C-alpha cells in the first residue's frame, strides 16, 4: 500500500480550527486536537481511494496465479476437487457440518457438474484477471477460490491460504479501476461522450450518488489497510515462530529444508547450495531478520531494498524448493506496498527502454512533453485508442500515455 502517500493528503478539515485553538483553554485545545485528528482521519478515509494501481496488480496477479494453478492441475483435477477424490464428497460434507464451511463443489456428485464448475473457475479467473465487470467477477472469484480451497482443504499449503485471503479481501476493493477492461470501456465511453455535459441529476439523486462514492472509497481504503496488515502479520508471525526454532538460531535451518525430498525438484542444485554452510547460515539469519523487521521498514525508503531482497528470496524458494505457487502468491502480496507513483512510472520506464532499443532516435523536445493528455476522442470516433497505439509504435512518446489515465 502506498503508505508514503499519507502525508500528501490535503488535510482540509483541520485548518479552520487552527486559529481558534490557540486562544482556547487547555481542555479546549485537547478537544480541538481531537477534532482535527478525526477530521484528518475522515479526509484520509473518504478523500480518494488509495493505491488503485496496487489493488489492480493484486487482481491481475491472483487471477493469473489461480488460472495457472487450475490449468497446471488439469490432469489431477478429479483427484483434488472432483467426485473421485480420496477426500470423498461425503467426507467433505461431514467436515463442513463440523466447521461451517461450504463449497459449490459438493452440491452434486455428478462428474459433469464438476467439469462445469472447473470450466467456470477457469473463466472466472481469466475474467477477473482482465478486469471485466470487476466487482461482480471479484465476488465470483472469491466464491470459486473458497469453494475449491474448502473442497481440497487437506491438500493445501500456505500459498493456497494466502490466495484465499486475498480473494476475499479483494471483493471489497476497487481493484478494477486501473489496467482493466472496465477502465478501458470507461475511457472509451468518456471519449465518445466528449463534450456532452453530464446528465443533470436531481439534488437527492446527486446526494445518493456522492454517498455511494464515499462509501465505496471508504470500503476500498479499509480493505487495502487490511491487506497490508495481513501481509505484515504473515511475515511477522512466520518470523516470530522461527525465532523460537533452534535450527534458525544455529543457522542450519535451510540445510534441513534443502534436504527434504518433496521440496527438492533439482537435487543437484540443492546439494550444491548445501555445500556452503556459511551461505546457508547467512541466508537463514537474513530470512528471520527480514521477516521480523518487515512491518517496521514499510514506512520509509528502506522498503525498496527490503522488498527487492524478499523478491530474490521468493524466487529462490520457487526454484530451489519447488514452490512456485506459494512464492508467486507472496510476490504479488508484496506488490501491495508499492505506491501508485511507482506503478505510474513503470510504463514510462518501459517506453524509454523501448525508445532506446527502437530504430529511430527520439526527438528530445517531444520526449520532454511526456506528461500527456489522453487523446481527445470525438463522438462517433471509436478508434481513439487505436490511433494512440499506432502513434506509440511510431515512437512518439507525447501521445503514449493514453493507456494509463482512466
Amino acid at each position, binding site marked *: 500500500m502506498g503508505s508514503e502517500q499519507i502525508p500528501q493528503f490535503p488535510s482540509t478539515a483541520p485548518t479552520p480550527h487552527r486559529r481558534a485553538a490557540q486562544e482556547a483553554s487547555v481542555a479546549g485545545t485537547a478537544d480541538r486536537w481531537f477534532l482535527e485528528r478525526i477530521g484528518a482521519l475522515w479526509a484520509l478515509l473518504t478523500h480518494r481511494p488509495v493505491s488503485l494501481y496496487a489493488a489492480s496488480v493484486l487482481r491481475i496477479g491472483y487471477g493469473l496465479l489461480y488460472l495457472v494453478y487450475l490449468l497446471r492441475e488439469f490432469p489431477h483435477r478429479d483427484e483434488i476437487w472432483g467426485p473421485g477424490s480420496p477426500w470423498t464428497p461425503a*467426507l467433505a460434507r461431514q467436515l463442513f457440518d463440523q*466447521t461451517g464451511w461450504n463449497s459449490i463443489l459438493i452440491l452434486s456428485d455428478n462428474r459433469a457438474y464438476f467439469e462445469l464448475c472447473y470450466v467456470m473457475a477457469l473463466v472466472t479467473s481469466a475474467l477477473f484477471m482482465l478486469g471485466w465487470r470487476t466487482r461482480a467477477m471479484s465476488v465470483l472469484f472469491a466464491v470459486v477460490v473458497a469453494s475449491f480451497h474448502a473442497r481440497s482443504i487437506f491438500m493445501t499449503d500456505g500459498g493456497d491460504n494466502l490466495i484465499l485471503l486475498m480473494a476475499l479481501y479483494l471483493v471489497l476493493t476497487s481493484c478494477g479501476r486501473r489496467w482493466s477492461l472496465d477502465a478501458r470501456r470507461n475511457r472509451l465511453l468518456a471519449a465518445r461522450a466528449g463534450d456532452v455535459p453530464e446528465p443533470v441529476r436531481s439534488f437527492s439523486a446527486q446526494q445518493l450518488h456522492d454517498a455511494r462514492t464515499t462509501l465505496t472509497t471508504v470500503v476500498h481504503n479499509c480493505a487495502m489497510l487490511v491487506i497490508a496488515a495481513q501481509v505484515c*502479520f504473515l511475515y511477522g508471525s512466520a518470523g516470530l*515462530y522461527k525465532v523460537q526454532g533452534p535450527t534458525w538460531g544455529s543457522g542450519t535451518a535451510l540445510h534441513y529444508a534443502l534436504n527434504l525430498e518433496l521440496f527438492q525438484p533439482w537435487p543437484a542444485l540443492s546439494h550444491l547450495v548445501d555445500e556452503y554452510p556459511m551461505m546457508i547460515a547467512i541466508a537463514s539469519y537474513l530470512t528471520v531478520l527480514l521477516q521480523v523487521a518487515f512491518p517496521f521498514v514499510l514506512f520509509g525508503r528502506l522498503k525498496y531494498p527490503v522488498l527487492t531482497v524478499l523478491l530474490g528470496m521468493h524466487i529462490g524458494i520457487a526454484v530451489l524448493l519447488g514452490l512456485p505457487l506459494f512464492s508467486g502468491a507472496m510476490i504479488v502480496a508484496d506488490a501491495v506496498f508499492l505506491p501508485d507513483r511507482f506503478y505510474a512510472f513503470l510504463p514510462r520506464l518501459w517506453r524509454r527502454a523501448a525508445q532506446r532499443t527502437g530504430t529511430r532516435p527520439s526527438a528530445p523536445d517531444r520526449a520532454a512533453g511526456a506528461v500527456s493528455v489522453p487523446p481527445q476522442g470525438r463522438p462517433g470516433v471509436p478508434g481513439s485508442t487505436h490511433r494512440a497505439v499506432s502513434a506509440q509504435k511510431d515512437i512518439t512518446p507525447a501521445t503514449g500515455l493514453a493507456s494509463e489515465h482512466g
Partner: protein
Amino acid sequence: MQAGLRTAVAVCLVTTLVHVVLVFLHVAPANPVSKRYSSQVNGWVYPLFEQNWRLFAPDPDSFNRTILARTAHSDSKGSVQVTPWFDLAAVDHSAVDHNVFPSHTSQNLLRRAWTSYVETHGGSDTARSERAVMLQTYLRNVAADRVAALNGGGGTFEFIQLRVITLPVAAPGAASRNRPPAPSEDRLLPWWKVTSHGK
C-alpha cells in the same frame, strides 16, 4: 443522510480494526491475551480467515518419510495373497524431481494426509474422535487409490496396510552424509478393510 454516511464509515473503520486485531491474535504465538479471548478470536476467524504461516517454522522438518503400502486379497478358495510393499512416497519424489511446478498431488496430498492422521491419532492407531475416523478413511483412500494406480487397475484387493519409515536428515557436515541414515521411526499400521475404493 450525512449521519447515516458517518455511521457507515465508522462501522467500516471499527470492523477493520476488530478484524486486524483478531487476526493478529490468531496468528501470533499463544499468549495470555489470545488465550483470554480465544472464543472471540475463533468465532471471528473460523472458517474463512483461518491461517497458519508455519511452513519451516519454528523449524523445518528434519526428516524424510517413506510411506509404504501393501494389499491383501482373499480368493474364492479362501487363501490370502499379500503383495510386496509399494513405495508410495517414491512416486511423489519422482514426480517432483526436475519439475518446475510440482503438483499439489505429489507435494501435499500424501504428506498432509499422513501429518493430519498423526495430529488426530498420535502414536495410537485407534481413532478416538469423529475427525480421527474421517482422516483414517482419507488416508486409507489415498493409499488405496495410489496402489490401484500403480497396479494399473489390475489386481483386486480387500485389505491394505501402511508402513511409515521416518529417515532423519543428517546434520550439516556430518560424515555420514553419503550413507543412508538409520530410520528414527518405523511404524506399522494395522490392516484396514478397503470398501469403496481401490477395487
